[in-house]
């Protein structure tokens, strides 16, 4: 029994009945079209369907070119010119170009997820520009230190100009908070590898600011990060950025890292508190070396428990895998469908309806969800093991030190912002002019 708009469309029915009789052949051949396209007697021409073209491909290539050029330029400013001003203006350029003009996408920080997904999911098509944005900063960092972080990354640059009155953090706080990026990186890789989500992009705090658009929540978070940056310099770069972890590791092996002094350190201590990121290593005095034996012993002990920590971490991760997996939309949907007494709100209802009308069977969904949960179990082991390793290495690293006479930047955490250089009284070729009593 069907009831239809008969009262209203009576005329129309007659009209179309006639029309169908007239155009029966057309109707048969194009049975999908319920109402045939009219032929206008008044000679009316139909307007075209507008389909604006996407951004030209050439511009994407130009983006890569701009990246390479600006990276080269800022590296030159830092290493050759030793100019903080140059770095500052490059930051402004980057905020304007990569930030406001390109609206913060694609950025190197997010690209690591595309790379992960492409490695784990062979059918995923990764754009070449994304690969370029991932590889180029890494290579530059490998040879010249984190010049990318200094002022090319728009996320870093926008925080950097907010650095007004930085306070130095206690070294334990720095180390402890410095572990968070590893957790964030681990989660980002796990969720990207399981094709669940790109969490780094989802929780990118500054992209909303660059776009003048975004969810209220993310804009507020971005504002908080920027305001924090006035007192605690670059909080996102130091305590969140997952790409920073990679750059940190790579930078430790960098060939020509920037130095505080152009020639030789005279140990004037002037630069000691100049770094807003607490990345200057002070000289290690000889009297510390007296305790060398106990230190070495502790180092060996701590190194030995690393495997144990890896196992503990892995085990914990594997226990935690269901919580991790419940972020996955398929797992969530399967869970909702399986638990019939679940409270269903309108949002999940939309998903259930869409699923039911998609023609996929529940059995297929369940088996897919089961295999995703299984992946998360493996992923949980790996993530936990990785974090165990990171904690172990950090602990072991905290038990060793190098004999150092000079003030040097910590090659891992130094962001090459070139602030410290201005504090160094030594000028190239003029070192003899300046002496200290």
């Amino acid at each position, binding site marked *: *029994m*069907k009831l239809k708009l008969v009262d209203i469309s009576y005329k129309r029915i007659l009209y179309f*009945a006639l029309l169908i009789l007239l155009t029966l052949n057309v109707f048969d051949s194009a049975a999908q079209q319920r109402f045939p396209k009219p032929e206008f007697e008044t000679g009316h021409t139909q307007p075209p369907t507008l389909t604006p073209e996407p951004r030209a491909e050439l511009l994407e290539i130009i983006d890569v070119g701009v990246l390479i050029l600006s990276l080269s330029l800022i590296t030159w400013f830092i290493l050759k010119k030793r100019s903080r001003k140059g770095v500052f203006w490059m930051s402004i350029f980057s905020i304007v170009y990569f930030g406001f003009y390109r609206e913060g996408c694609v950025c190197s920080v997010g690209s690591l997820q595309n790379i992960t997904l492409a490695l784990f999911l062979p059918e995923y098509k990764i754009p070449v520009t994304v690969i370029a944005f991932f590889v180029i900063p890494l290579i530059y960092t490998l040879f010249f230190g984190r010049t990318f972080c200094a002022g090319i990354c728009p996320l870093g640059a926008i925080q950097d100009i907010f650095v007004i009155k930085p306070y130095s953090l206690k070294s334990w706080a720095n180390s402890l908070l410095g572990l968070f990026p590893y957790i964030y990186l681990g989660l980002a890789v796990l969720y990207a590898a399981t094709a669940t989500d790109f969490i780094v992009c989802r929780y990118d705090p500054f992209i909303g600011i660059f776009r003048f658009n975004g969810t209220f929540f993310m804009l507020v978070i971005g504002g908080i990060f920027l305001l924090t940056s006035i007192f605690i310099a670059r909080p996102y770069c130091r305590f969140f950025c997952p790409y920073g972890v990679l750059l940190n590791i790579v930078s430790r092996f960098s060939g020509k890292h920037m130095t505080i002094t152009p020639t030789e350190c005279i140990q004037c201590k002037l630069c000691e508190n100049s770094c807003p990121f607490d990345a200057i290593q002070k000289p290690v005095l000889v009297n510390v070396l007296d305790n060398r034996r106990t230190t070495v012993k502790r180092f060996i002990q701590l190194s030995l428990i690393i495997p144990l920590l890896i196992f503990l971490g892995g085990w914990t991760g594997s*226990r935690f895998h*269901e919580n991790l997996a419940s972020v996955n939309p398929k797992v969530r949907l399967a869970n909702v*469908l399986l638990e019939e007494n679940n409270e269903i709100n309108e949002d999940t*209802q939309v998903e259930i309806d869409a699923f039911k*009308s998609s023609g996929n069977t529940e059995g297929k969904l369940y*088996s897919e969800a089961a295999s995703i949960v299984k992946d998360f179990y493996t992923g949980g082991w790996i993530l936990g093991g990785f974090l165990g390793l990171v904690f172990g290495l950090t602990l072991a690293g905290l038990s060793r030190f190098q004999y150092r006479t000079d003030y040097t930047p910590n090659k891992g955490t130094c962001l090459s912002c070139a602030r410290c250089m201005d504090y160094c009284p030594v000028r190239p070729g003029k070192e003899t002019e300046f002496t200290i009593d």
Partner: protein
Amino acid sequence: MENNEKYLSKNEQFWQRIVWIAGAFSFIICVLIIVNYAQINRLDPINTEVINKLVERLNQNPEDNELREEIREMDLLVRKAYFTNQWQIRTGGYMLLIGVAIAIIGLQVIITNRKKNPQISDTRDQDLLQKQKITRRWVSLGGTLVVTTALAFAYLSHQSLENRFEIAAEGEPQEIEQQNISTEETVSESIDEDVADDLPPEQTQVVADNQNDSVTESTILKEEELESSVVTTSSEPATTSGEDSFTNFRGPGGNGISTQKNIPENWNGETGENIAWKVAIPLRGFNSPIIWGNKVFLSGAEELRREVYCLNRNSGEFIWTAKVENVPGSPVKGPEVANYTGYAAPTMATDGKRVFAIFSNGDITALDMDGNQIWARNLGAPVNHYGHSSSLMVYNDKVIVQYDQKNLAQILALSVNNGETVWSKTRDVKISWASPVIVNTGNRMGIILAAEPFVISYDPDTGNELWRLDCIYGEVGPSVAYADGIVFSVNDYSKLAAIKIGDTPEILWESEEYLSDIPSPVATDKYLFLATSYGVIVCYDAKKGTILWEHEIDNTIYASPMIVEDKVYLVDKQGIMYIFRVDKEYIPVAQPELGEKIVCTPAFAEGKIYLRGYDHLYCIGK
């Protein structure tokens, strides 16, 4: 030098002022944006419930011009507010950017111009080893915290998801297979019994054999035999004889032919002449009543209320009212339906032990004869712009559901015992509003469904497709009619097709003269009766397709014609029943009026007619 310093401090004062002003400006803008944001959330134009409610009210009183003006004004107001708000936020964003940029420039200028005295810490540095020790402690503490939190969460919410999913995944198809096996056995048994009651022994043999697909010769049955072999859909006619029963939409098999006798021909709704009783039904529904024994069942629903009613067939008293609630998976929001379809368009069905009802939101339920719920489930809210309206049908121990919705057209067979899917088939057809017809098509039972572009027949036991024909288009409302090996399918904007089914179904004849979009046709071996919704009754020669007669009435017809003995009963929307002979001429028998609007097809039992108007259920007869 002094001059320079003075200049510097003056300069600094200037910049300080600028920073203060810019900072205050940015703060104010920031607050304004947040306030604006809070407003925009309230002003979501997509979900202006107020306007929607007003429009609904207007639909009920279309003449209310004041209300119309009110809607227009409010609509303009909401849209204006929405776009102005967006403009404000965007402009505010730019102003905030400028403010913050100026403040930052000022601050940067101040700190670069300020004399920087490098700080040299006087206090002796903490011992490096001491520092490392403290850091180690903190890192260990942090690590322990992370591990304990993770474990605590893991154990608190442990669900062994993987296992459960795997079991569920494996469970699904296996269950269906087992079900299939068991039902096949019971079906063949019960079919044997059923048929044995009705048919001579040889016939039984043929039908039973055909069930096993072993007989190839086609047996053409005589008309009487066919009539009697139209399936009585109950498998267990236990307590009551099927004769007093009318178990589903359009009678046995859904084919529009009732086996009842001594049905009244005269009544008058206004004077109450020949009306046994008349009862108001609490919730509206455009489904027809069904009958088992001395009980008559029907359903009614609103957007969020769904009820099944059971009345005493002889007295019209309510025996029970069952609310259909807490159905697992039922959507929180009611579906959007056209008000001429309503929320309870599909007619119920019964197997004598249970009654089944389906509603516009996809809820289907089985109740026992005392109104207790046996099972209930949701089939997924149908995507249907008028509202779901296909009626239910019971075949042996299965409820057949035609579920042709927009994105996924399906036919499902649910177990009468627990509602689980015994079989289901995805249909490559468009959305439809027709109901299934189950008939014995000569040598086997077949479900026949119509939806653009196919008329398809399914095996009711396994769901296997038996045949299909590309011959129907548009939004199919009428169900098919069947008689003597011919299926008649019709829809508006399409054609009327008589399909001769055999090994290869073929179109016997076609016509486009009169097409129906709501009432289903009904056929005998000689005649096909068709009612169009715009009020023309037509009789075709069932074999040749020539029009034998046509009769125009002035009213709209939504209900389907029914054949009882040698008469056709057809009720129009005004409540006038046209009773005429099954004959090659239009021979009216009577034309009684009920005086209430009617869109439902009547049900017949033991010399009585049960007829549902918009608000009342009538029992006609002495």
